[in-house]
């Protein structure tokens, strides 16, 4: 769910651009440094970007047959770490704006902040926290996926509320309104995405354990992004 | 005459190219071996997707045993018990860690009891000559092995009709031979097979009938007849199989289908004197 082009007033566009910039620049610097050392990592990052983009076109099974789709930033946060996702998120959002008319250019800052920064970071913190508390892996993944999805949608709701405060109850009322409306699709979706995350990682552990280990999954955090990926890649 | 499967004035395509097939009619009789020929991008794979129930035509009908295909969830489930398609790229259809598990994917989705699933897996691997692979990891298989396992996955659904998209492409000659033997076993076990291929010699040798996709339409007929039609061959970017080209060049009114028949034709036809020598 991205904010469409033209919807935010100019001042707010600028504010959200300014808020997102440090994270994106931080991510971009990391990415540049990373690929200067390992040019072959360009491809892995590009793959991650392409997959994130395409993930949003996969339909999730549901009883009603509605067409909800995953956002996938949670998987990205676990596999590639949030700073990298902040930068890749911008690319994906630009592509979505220009290839799918989903989102926009002036609203890019706001959408980046919600989808590529707030979602992955909050999800990732929850993931680390759960692991720190010795929570089971599955729970950590579930919470990371579900909460990064929920965080994205909460931030978006507030962004819209600031732009369009409710005629009678102001920003808070508007935020509740947007939260309420989008909750219909987003709350079940985030839960589904959480479950999907568990199944997905279970599948990956079964068939691609070495690659996952290479990415630093479940072996220890702290490895920046795709550093280890490239080494694995040579014998995939 | 109710065909096992039949496409009736089908118009189908993809978002960017809505009329890849524009009024295609095709009959698949039970027990035939049907070769599907045509240029790159002519729409062979598209036609197979329509027949398999994966791509709904914009207009026209697909009939199974004379009954129009019901494109609902339930109808498609029923259809796929009878018609199975194997795609060209084996990697894209192996999604389990080991071979037996992968082959069991379809039967499990049919909700069969575990014992029956196990039996079907064994049997279909055996038919494809791949029973020794059952316990191997899918990503350790060679290309030819992966092709056979992917086919076993479809065979395990016990379909009446198998749609195979270029089952021999990329295989070495020995691999092609093994795949052909597997297809012969399947035919003997009662399956009807449609095979898309670019190999005209293989088509002529293996098939009874051919369907050539050309200019968004299909021409169906006996394989040796269609492949002797120079006009059609040029339009469909095909070439005459060498056996037919040879017979034509020698001015012989025969249509040998493979090396053996070509040899027989040449030895038959040669003057008696030469005969004994050559017949060795």
């Amino acid at each position, binding site marked *: 769910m991205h904010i469409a082009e033209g919807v935010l007033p100019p001042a707010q566009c600028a504010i959200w651009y300014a808020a997102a910039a440090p994270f994106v620049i931080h991510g971009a610097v990391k990415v540049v440094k990373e690929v200067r050392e390992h040019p072959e990592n360009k491809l892995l990052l590009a793959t991650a*970007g392409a997959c994130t983009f395409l993930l949003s076109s996969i339909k999730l099974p549901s009883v009603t047959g509605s067409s909800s789709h995953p956002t996938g930033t949670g998987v990205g946060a676990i596999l590639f770490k949030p700073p990298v996702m902040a930068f890749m998120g911008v690319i994906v959002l630009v592509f979505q704006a220009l290839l799918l008319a989903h989102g926009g250019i002036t609203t890019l800052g706001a959408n980046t902040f919600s989808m590529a920064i707030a979602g992955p970071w909050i999800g990732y913190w929850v993931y680390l926290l759960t692991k720190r508390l010795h929570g089971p892996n599955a729970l950590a993944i579930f919470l990371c996926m579900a909460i990064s999805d929920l965080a994205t949608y909460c931030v978006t709701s507030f962004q819209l509320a600031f732009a369009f405060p409710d005629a009678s109850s102001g920003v808070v009322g508007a935020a509740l309104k947007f939260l309420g409306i989008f909750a219909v699709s987003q709350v079940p979706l985030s839960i589904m995405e959480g479950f999907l995350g568990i199944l997905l990682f279970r599948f990956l552990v079964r068939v691609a354990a070495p690659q996952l280990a290479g990415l630093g999954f479940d072996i220890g955090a702290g490895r920046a992004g795709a550093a280890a990926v490239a080494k694995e890649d040579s014998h995939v | 005459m109710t065909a096992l499967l039949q496409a009736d004035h089908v118009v189908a395509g993809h978002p960017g190219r809505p009329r890849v097939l524009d009024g295609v009619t095709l009959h698949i009789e039970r027990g035939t071996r049907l070769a599907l020929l045509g240029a790159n991008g002519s729409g062979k794979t598209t036609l197979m997707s329509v027949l398999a129930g994966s791509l709904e035509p914009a207009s026209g009908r697909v009939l199974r045993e004379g009954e129009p295909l019901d494109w609902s969830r339930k109808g498609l489930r029923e259809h796929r018990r009878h018609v*199975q398609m194997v795609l060209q790229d084996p990697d894209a259809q192996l999604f389990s860690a080991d071979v037996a598990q992968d082959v069991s994917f379809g039967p499990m989705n049919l909700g069969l009891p575990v014992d029956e699933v196990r039996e079907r897996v064994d049997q279909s691997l055996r038919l494809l000559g791949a029973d020794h692979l059952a316990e191997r990891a899918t990503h350790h298989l060679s290309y030819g092995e992966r092709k056979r396992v992917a086919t076993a996955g479809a065979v395990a659904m016990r379909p009446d009709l198998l749609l195979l998209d270029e089952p021999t492409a990329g295989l070495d000659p020995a691999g092609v031979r093994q795949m052909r033997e597997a297809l012969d076993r399947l035919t003997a076990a009662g399956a009807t097979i449609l095979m898309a291929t670019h190999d005209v010699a293989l088509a002529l040798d293996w098939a009874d009938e051919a369907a050539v996709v050309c200019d968004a339409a299909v021409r169906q007929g006996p394989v040796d007849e269609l492949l002797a039609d120079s006009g059609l061959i040029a339009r469909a970017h095909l070439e005459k199989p060498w056996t037919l080209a040879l017979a034509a060049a020698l001015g012989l009114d025969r249509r040998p289908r493979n090396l053996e028949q070509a040899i027989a034709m040449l030895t038959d036809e040669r003057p008696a004197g030469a005969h004994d020598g050559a017949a060795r």
Partner: protein
Amino acid sequence: MNNHSHHINALDDAAWDSPWRRRRVGEKVLCSMGLVLTALLAPVWPGTVLVSVAAVAFILGSARIRLHVLAEAMSAPLVFLVLGGVSVLLAVGRTPTDAWWSLGALSIGPTSSVQALRLFLHGMSGTLSVMVLATTTPMVDLLTWLRRFHVPEPLLEIANLTYRLLFVILDTMLTVMEAQRCRLGDNPVGPMHGLRRRWDNTAAAIGAIGILAWERAGRLNEGMSHRGFETTLATLPVRRRASPRFIVITLAVIAAIWALSLGGTAS
């Protein structure tokens, strides 16, 4: 893999075939962004409406994009705009004294409806303005153009590869999903349409797509190293002719919109 016009590439296909492909990217960006800013900054009435009209005229008239491509592209943002508009339209809380309609805590009044209309019109005109760029300029051209702003080369290369891989992986994705459908992966027997198995199968499909994508990236990496890839992906810059005429028309249209809107509010 060609022409996989999943909805993903309707706009992309249009951009590649657009008669404006030969135009300088900078000129198209000027046109599109000029309209976007006008939509955002000019008085809502008649500014946004004029911007919409101008954008549609550019897209359908001058760039000769087919109507149904534009209509299809606009359908997704429309849903969002309608949803957003409706939620702004319905105020919650104490009913304002000037409300036209109210039901419990919900009400519709002049303030909320003006807000809703503003959201809708801004959104429509803004999105249409961006479509001027999206329907006429393939992503590669845009990325090549960004080079002149000294965006670090590796970042552009990653974006470029992402774009290329998008189509390669889309192809893989469609194949994997079709393969699963063939064996009833999306439609298994079981309670609630086999919901449990469907979840497992979806996870397996996404995982398989991920792994295949990974493998393909590895292969592309290998292919590129065969071609002498070391650090950068240098390629030929595309030659384009400048069109002062186009710039003048763009500026004139934007100026006219401003004049009409400001004149409209002044009167």
